[in-house]
């Protein structure tokens, strides 16, 4: 389980079970989960209240995309990883330079990518 020194991860994912699964998987790998946000508004509120070291953004959130979150994170110099069912050319330009994991993916790949993105890695 996460301790004080655990990297703090914000998960943005609109599918409840996938979000839950990601949270469980990452906690098992020693990360601390700041929260699972299914909408842009919820994600921005969570980020403002609690911050995070790295964020995982599902690009498509049903009726909106997570592009506004990507802009906020970029402005705050917080790294993020995009996960999506879209092909890369279907993603908003905010994700052009972010590492992208295509759904479905294995936890090991996400963990490796998170470690690469850690500020003090």
């Amino acid at each position, binding site marked *: 389980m996460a301790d004080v020194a655990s990297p703090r991860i914000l998960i943005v994912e609109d*599918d409840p079970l996938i979000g839950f699964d990601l949270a469980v998987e990452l906690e098992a790998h020693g990360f601390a989960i700041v929260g699972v946000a299914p909408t842009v508004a919820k994600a921005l509120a969570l980020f403002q209240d609690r911050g995070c070291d790295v964020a995982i953004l599902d690009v498509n959130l049903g009726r909106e995309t997570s592009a506004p979150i990507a802009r906020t994170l970029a402005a705050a110099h917080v790294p993020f990883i995009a996960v999506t*069912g*879209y092909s890369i050319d279907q993603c908003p330009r905010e994700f052009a330079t972010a590492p992208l994991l295509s759904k*479905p993916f294995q936890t090991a790949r996400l963990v490796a990518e998170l470690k690469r993105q850690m500020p003090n890695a």
Partner: protein
Amino acid sequence: MHGQPGAPPAMPEPLSSSTYLAAIVASSADAILGTTRDGTIRSWNAACERLFGRTSQEMIGQSVLEIVPGELWNEEQTTLGRAASGASIENYETVRLMADGRPIEVAITLSPIRDAFDVVIGVSSVIRDIGEKKQAERGAAMLAAIITSTTDGVVSKTLDGIITSWNKSAERILGFTEADMLNTSIRRIIPADRQAEEDRILATVLAGDIIDNFETVRIRNDGTLIDVAVTVSPVRDASGRIVGASKIVRDITDKRQTRDQLHTLLAEVNHRSKNLLSLVQAIARQMTRQGHQLDLDRFLERLQALAGNQDLLIQNGWRFIPLADLIRSQLRSFGDAIGNRIRIEGPSIELTPESAQAIGMAIHELATNAAKFGALANHEGRVDIGWTRDDLSFTMHWIEQDGPQVAPPKRRGFGSKVISDMVRLSLDGTVDVLFPLSGLRWHLACPIGRITRGRGNG
């Protein structure tokens, strides 16, 4: 007249002026006939014989009405009467009959014939066959009508791109009127970054080739861009020389939109199908955590529960699922028990697709558990499912009674996690699961805005 003695040798007698005129009439290419004032034919030249197919022997002495269709007799008598009273009537277009009764279109010039005392003694008619000219006029009128009424824009231009015609539909599609566009360059309606297209179009036309349904963008008079398909063909003069181009412009906004929608839909299908694979992966992963063997039957039941949700979403245009429908769908296998042992009660509420999935999965897990160990495992047990809402919050409960005695599960498996952790996390709510002896009690409370886009969304 006789020659005088001693006079110079006789010259050939000159033609009298009347004989001379008669010769002109006889040899004229135009059909010329003369009648008395009352319309009896007195002369009928060779051109009349050719035009009507009747000889002068046949016709002289007959009424001119012989060559007039019955329905025009009144008109002919009036016209003849006017000429007989001294009026000249020029190029009056009417119909006459040939020997076989076929009508021909003619233009007739009627003139009074006067004697030496200036008295009108008859009427001359010069008749020209205008059938071909009329045919050509009708053909042109037909083409003009087609071009006027077609829904495609039809434009013609010179080889320099100067517009020479601009029909109504071109006006409708592009907004510019004929008056706006005549004698100006077609380049006005071509966006700056597409000007090279016109060079290519003109070069193709000059080579005698056709550009067929070329899809491009043009500028409307209000400055907006419109998707069009253009077909451009060379226009030739009578000698076959290319003198310009005709251009058919079709508005393909609808087609472009349909294509864009299809593209968006395919991207959506891509996204959703991969999301579903992720979801299946998440279920399998959560069911097999800490080295548990995958219970294949349970796994497949869960996939079926997801598929049921998807059906409801499709029925509602992928926008929402009514909560009562969601519960009934997930409890479908209990059939008759619904409304009897299973009570479902609460206000109408439209769940977002995401919250419907969370609540739907929780209901599925609760029902499966009830059927195995709870109130639906015997014949007496009852389940009370209810919910309330106000402007801020939503609460829901699942309460079992009269089933076998229950105890908390020894291990928190996938089902336990779904009805508590997953629901709590995804709906930002609180979940209580209690196991009194009377039966399982499940309570959910969360902000109303997390489950519906209806009134009171936060």
